[in-house]
């Protein structure tokens, strides 16, 4: 009896261990492989790469050779900054307004604001393209900013609502009973306590905007090119090795950002909540 159980436990360790290792391998290996390939000397992206050189990074950073990519990067950053900025403002206001409200209408509004998370992005992207075109707007970065704000605001709402629900109501009561106005309480008590939540959400929203495909696919044009769409173009036609260099830069950026966010707001802890 005891022997059979230990055999069962052994098989458990073996099966679970193997599958988990496979999962880790599948998560990490492609990232490492792309990073390695980006330093290739050759003209194609085979693995293992032939030799070591920085030629694709040089080509990528060269303003005359890669002007289109640079413009796409600056467009993407601009859109992400504005959409996150507006998202933080409108999102934290809305969270303050309805997060602790038990009214049925507040719950409905909450679900409505989070719905872009489950709605297929392409459906909204196409809808936005038709809407903006049919009411007479010309394609511009402003429209992309508006579209990105809608699909990234749920991230800000979620983390802000989570921080608000952890806020001890006694703190607000004591502030108010000591004579502080509603605005003063907001400025000196509520906001400082929920700020890490707002910023964690803003960070996720910013990254989601940089990475957004479905909305940019429909709203961007040659003049308002966005980075993911440009990269898609680079993969679709001839496989341009500069894309490995772009990937290398983005991998490094994601890694550094992750470290910074971990130290400042404890991102992973917040995401597990």
């Amino acid at each position, binding site marked *: 009896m005891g022997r059979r159980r230990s055999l069962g436990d052994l098989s458990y360790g073996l099966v679970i261990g193997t599958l*988990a290792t496979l999962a880790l391998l599948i998560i990490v290996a492609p*990232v490492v492989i792309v990073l390695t390939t980006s330093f290739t000397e050759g003209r194609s992206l085979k*693995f293992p790469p032939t030799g070591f050189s920085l030629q694709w990074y040089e080509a990528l950073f060269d303003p005359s050779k890669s002007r289109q990519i640079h413009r796409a990067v600056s467009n993407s950053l601009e859109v992400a900054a504005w959409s996150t900025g507006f998202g933080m403002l409108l*999102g934290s206001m*809305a969270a303050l307004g309805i997060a602790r409200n038990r009214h049925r209408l507040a719950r409905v509004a909450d679900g409505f604001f989070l719905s872009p998370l*489950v709605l297929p992005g392409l459906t909204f992207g196409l809808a936005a393209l038709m809407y903006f075109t049919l009411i007479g707007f010309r394609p511009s970065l402003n429209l992309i900013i508006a579209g990105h704000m809608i699909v990234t605001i749920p991230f800000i709402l979620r983390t802000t609502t989570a921080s608000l629900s952890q806020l001890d109501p006694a703190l607000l009561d004591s502030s108010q009973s000591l004579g502080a106005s509603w605005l003063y309480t907001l400025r000196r008590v509520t906001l400082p306590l929920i700020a890490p939540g707002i910023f964690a959400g803003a960070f996720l929203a910013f990254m989601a905007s940089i990475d957004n495909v479905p909305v940019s696919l429909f709203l961007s044009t040659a003049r308002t090119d966005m980075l993911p769409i440009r990269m898609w173009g680079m993969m*679709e036609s001839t496989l341009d090795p500069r894309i490995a260099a772009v990937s290398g830069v983005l991998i490094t950026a994601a890694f550094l950002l*992750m470290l910074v966010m971990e130290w400042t707001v404890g991102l992973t802890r917040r995401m597990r909540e």
Partner: protein
Amino acid sequence: MKKLAEWQLALPLTLAFASIFLAPLLMLVGVSFFNDDKITEPGFGQWAKFLGDPFSYKVIFDTMMLGLKTVCATILIGYPLALVYLDASPRLQKVLIFVIVMPLLLSVVVRTFAWIVVLGREGVVNTVLMQLGVISEPLRLLQTELGLVISLTQIEMPLMLLPLISVMSRLDPNLRDASAALGASRWRTLFTVIVPLSMPGLVAGCLLVFASSTTAFISQTVIGGVRLIYLPLLIWQQSLVVFNWPFAAVVSITLLISVLTVVSALSWLGRRSGGYVHG
């Protein structure tokens, strides 16, 4: 002066959502009921064309199957990883969560591109298999459904793992100890204690992975190629290549409805199994 009610703080966002989220979606529905691509003649023509074509059903079916296969694959290897995370020391947990979350911050396009390098003719898989002498000709992995499912498994994995881990870390460790002390094997503890209790996380993960993989336009087109046709590719072709907006609207409403149907079915199943656990 009357004091501002707190809920009024939500008004600006409500206005923004009404004008740039709800209005476009309503317009999308409206456009789908026009017969011609100039959007002048109202009618059910496009719906009839789409629903009368057997090819449409094949594309819908393929898209949903792609989502389900990806969900199964992420559960198969993601769930064991979550179990390992549960048993790991706090230090190892920090490393694991870092590894799991990082891909989420990495552009989907980069993750897709990574798989081209891995699965391509001169990619890692083919190089290794050829050198080991397993195969003599490079395997075709790109532009196959298998390659696409493998890639999507990695691309969507964080969406499965995060809700799973968040639910699992809140499980009372005493339950597992009690189960072991009462003589249950680790397999039995897994299937009678851990799996039922982690069901909310598992269901949440399935929903996210399904919704994301069925609509992953870039991965589907780049790794799947043009021969594997899924609903997102059809929407893109009809709207930005053929410029038949009413038909594109029909397809994207179909995508919305099919995804939401499977998602609600999954969450209904999840709630049922949840009810079984809590009595």
